[in-house]
């Protein structure tokens, strides 16, 4: 028994080393940086202080930023999960080559770089973009509609790239359901919709929770998409951090903001997962 534990330890050692070097150490550095005093100089002095955090919590725009971030991440996650069911059901039902093809189509948004993807949305949505130009040529509108620079376009751009995660998680939960359950439900008189809400939905709670966790944190941590699509109309936390670090060169403040964002995201995920588990327990008992 002890022997086996030892071999197991050696087997996971590379993973541990990798995580220490590229996750834990940077986190520690980040944490230390957050307690240095702010300034926009390259040289950062050594004294530790909590001034960064005090000024963050005193600043009104911090609260609107964090609210924007949470709202955006939550909306993107929910939209992805809702939209994922239909493709996931299709994916589970298809077989063989068609299935492989569907997977390729599904994963293709992930293969393009963020910047290219976002620029293509600009090409489509901006005032000189395809939609506005077509509508104006058709004389349906006189002046361009503002499709860009608002939160709807931001949600669309995020959903486009994050939807595949939700589809994969939910189809994974779906494949674990015995096919005969659908047949049993159907022959007991249930319509497809009734079966969805009473059998499929409760049995895919794990898929919903994983999708939420991943999509929520990816959205909250992303700054390129908000920067290019929404500009400064919608200030999200990740963008503020980017500006502090890369434009103002205030690394301690950027680090402090990162720590706060990280904690807020973790807290949200812990709470939603807890609520999700409660739902699961209510559904499954125990």
């Amino acid at each position, binding site marked *: 028994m002890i022997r086996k534990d030892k071999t197991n330890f050696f087997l996971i050692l590379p993973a541990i080393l990798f995580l220490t070097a590229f996750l834990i150490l940077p986190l520690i550095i980040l944490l230390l940086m957050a307690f240095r005093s702010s300034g926009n100089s390259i040289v950062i002095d050594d004294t530790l202080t909590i001034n960064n955090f005090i000024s963050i919590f005193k600043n009104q725009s911090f609260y609107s930023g964090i609210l924007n971030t949470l709202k955006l991440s939550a909306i993107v996650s929910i939209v992805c999960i809702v939209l994922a069911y239909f493709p996931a059901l299709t994916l589970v039902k298809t077989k063989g080559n068609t299935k492989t093809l569907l997977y390729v189509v599904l994963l293709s948004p992930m293969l393009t770089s963020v910047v290219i993807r976002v620029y293509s949305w600009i090409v489509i949505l901006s005032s000189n973009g395809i939609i506005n130009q077509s509508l104006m040529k058709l004389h349906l509108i006189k002046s361009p509609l503002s499709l860009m620079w608002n939160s709807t376009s931001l949600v669309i751009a995020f959903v486009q790239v994050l939807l595949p995660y939700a589809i994969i998680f939910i189809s994974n939960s779906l494949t674990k359901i*015995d096919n*005969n*359950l659908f*047949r*049993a*439900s*159907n*022959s*007991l*008189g*249930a*319509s497809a919709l*009734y079966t969805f809400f*009473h*059998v499929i939905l*409760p*049995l895919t709670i794990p898929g919903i929770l994983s999708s939420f966790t991943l999509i929520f944190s990816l959205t909250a941590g992303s700054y390129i998409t908000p920067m290019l699509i929404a500009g400064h109309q919608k200030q999200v936390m990740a963008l503020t951090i980017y500006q502090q670090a890369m434009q103002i060169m205030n690394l301690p403040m950027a680090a402090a903001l990162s720590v706060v964002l990280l904690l807020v995201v973790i807290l949200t995920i812990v709470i939603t997962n807890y609520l999700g588990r409660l739902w699961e327990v209510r*559904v*499954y*008992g*125990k």
Partner: protein
Amino acid sequence: MARIIFENVDYGYKDTNILNNINLEVANGELFSLVGPSGAGKSTLLNLLAGFLYPKKGRILIDNQNITELPPYKRNVGLVFQSYALFPNMNVFNNVAYGLKIKKVNRSEIKERVIKALSMVNLEQYIKRMPRELSGGQQQRVAIARALVIRPQVLLLDEPLSGLDAKLRQKMRSVIRELQQRVGITTILVTHDQSEALSISDQIAVLGEGKIQQVGTPEAIYNRPVNAYVAEFIGSTNLLNTVSTTNEIKVSLTDINEKTIKFLTRPSKNFKGLKFMIRPENIRLVEHAEPETLQGILTKIEYLGNAEKGWIQLKTDELVFYRSINHDKKRLQTGSVINFSIDPELIVSINQNGSGRF
């Protein structure tokens, strides 16, 4: 209650045909078993009746109503699967109540009917349990209660007992039969366990090679098979060689000592191309060689608890026999010489137009 009719039903996937020209009639209140080898299309037939598959050709009727095109949820059919298919997210009560809630039956009636259905299968004390907290046999009984509580016209059971161990299978077999008789519901049972089919059915259909080989009572299927397929599929059998001359067909056996006994002689013109068989339990072993006995070598023996099954090698043929075991009989040894006799009365001709004894 209900009568089921399949009329010239064809079914296939793309270009392969699974079922060809199926004609079946299941009478009201009957327990009808479908047997056949794996892949014969038994589940396919049930799925056609439940509405998960639609035939290429032909009609399916329940009580003279054509249901061929009806979707599953509009058919009034109770289904029980081999995998039980209980909803894992609902307790026993809610599983059984599922179909009633859909039909918008009022609450107090739901409660009453669910409890009644569960007490029919002796599970009323398990109402609050989740499916995973039940044994296989209990889950199977919940599945049966769930199917029956909606008062379906017909009950379809797809290998309901094959997930259970031998002892429980025996018990559940009689539970199903007893329940079916009490409710009086027309039932189709799919099974590949022939002893199950023989013991509880009113009628049996043998499905093989894409078509119905024979329909009949268990007694008819066992004793009067219409072809070699049925004869060999149900139970074990010995097909006997025939020697035909212009006028006569003879059934005879030659033993290891070149002794030949002629059992039957039939006129060729009525019995041309027919096969003859004898069931293993009709081969009688005797202690000593006598004029009407043959001799062979015992090549293999299987112990079955209360009986043994053996193979006797003759000059060219090999025969299978069953022999019951009791405490004062000596057990047989492989390699020993066996004397046996066959009563010609028990040899059966396998005949498309109803086989029989002579």
